């Protein structure tokens, strides 16, 4: 099958198999920042924004995402101009092995877009689909709070 996908703002015509997952399509086409973790929608490593909403790309069949806007963590900021959340994750020490980080940042972005002033409980709820085996989550929650602070100070 061939379909158009708008990935990180760029329209791309991509050939894919009818039973491919969105995760497979993205990784096979160079978007390896989308990580493959559990493959069951439990860990959140493969999170992307699909039409503005955070979804597990391992739980989405690629054919159902044709003509839709997909944003990966690389679509939020660049290495020279990182997004405020990306910067906050680095500054708060919320990145250790880094495998969960793209998904965490997408989840945090979706949360702050929907609720610009979340309390701690709401932050935890917003990140409830993301697992991290390194940090113990404290630093990640700190990072989201720091991003909030930075955003307010702008």
């Amino acid at each position: 099958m061939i379909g158009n996908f708008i990935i990180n703002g760029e329209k791309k015509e991509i050939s894919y198999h009818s039973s491919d997952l969105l995760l497979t399509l993205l990784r096979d086409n160079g978007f390896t920042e989308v990580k493959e973790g559990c493959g069951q929608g439990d860990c959140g490593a493969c999170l992307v924004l699909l039409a503005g909403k955070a979804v597990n790309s391992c739980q989405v069949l690629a054919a159902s995402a044709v003509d839709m806007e997909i944003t990966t963590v690389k679509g939020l900021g660049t290495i020279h101009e990182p997004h405020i959340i990306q910067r906050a994750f680095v500054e708060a020490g919320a990145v250790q092995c880094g495998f969960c980080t793209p998904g965490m940042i997408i989840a945090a972005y979706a949360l702050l877009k929907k609720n610009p002033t979340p309390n701690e409980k709401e932050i935890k709820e917003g990140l409830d689909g993301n697992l991290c085996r390194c940090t113990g989550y404290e630093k990640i929650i700190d990072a989201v709070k720091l991003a909030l602070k930075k955003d307010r100070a702008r």
Partner: protein
Amino acid sequence: MKEITWYFPSTLEEVPELLEKEGVFIHGGGTALLRSNLARVEGLIDLKALPLNYCRDREGVIEIGTSCTYRQVIEVLQKIDSNNILIRALSVAASTPLRNRITLGGSIAFFPVWSDLMGPLMVLEAEVTLIGSNKGSFPLVEYLKKREIRNRSLITGISFKKRELNSYYFRQSRTRFDYSAFSISILVKKSASPSGPGPASASMTSSGSPSASTIEEPAIVIVGCRNKFSRLSSLEDSLKNRSPADLQLKDIAGSLEVEFAAKKNYSPDYLKHLAAVELERALKAVLRS
């Protein structure tokens, strides 16, 4: 890999013919499909372009389109029916990204044993509307029990009456994100007892305890038991027109007649004991609040 044919109908009229094709399944969010075996799928009917993405209050009846995600249902119900038991149940189902993808129709058609949706829909006495070989509206329980209704049919919507009732929802799981071992859904209406204090003093008795009231329209469902779900009709009958203050809730819950199969980390006896304890707590919370 086997090739799957995708169909993208833009009108409901196109769907019945597609449903007649061999090996064709419905694709809403896809989360249920991916948990079953894709090898038996010849074709998929994608619902994205169909007008089935609504959640509204139509003259006291809540109507939800089959393509509505859990997140959409939560957000809309918070505005139009803020005490609805579905808000509480769906808010604890799965995770934030999965709630953005799981659709109501898919959850009903798939009905996993860990469902956080079905118990609340059963106590709400929801109806499903179908097109295809069985066009019409059917009580949810009838839809679940009769395979011939489900075959070659598409759920287009779910509806239930909007009512002001006390509700309670509990899910048993070891961690927040774990699948639930069972869930308890309760809806009940309490009204001032005709033999109780007069209207002027109806809110509190002289001792300061809640005023005499009677239980009306109780509906209690356990999901996750051996028969997948069980409506506790005899318990409901025993509660009807009684005053909550007169009930021995421990005895009532202790006589729970629901059987469980063994599950990972739970024996049938343990599950039954847990369910009785949680049912007692649930009844206390909903009847004596």
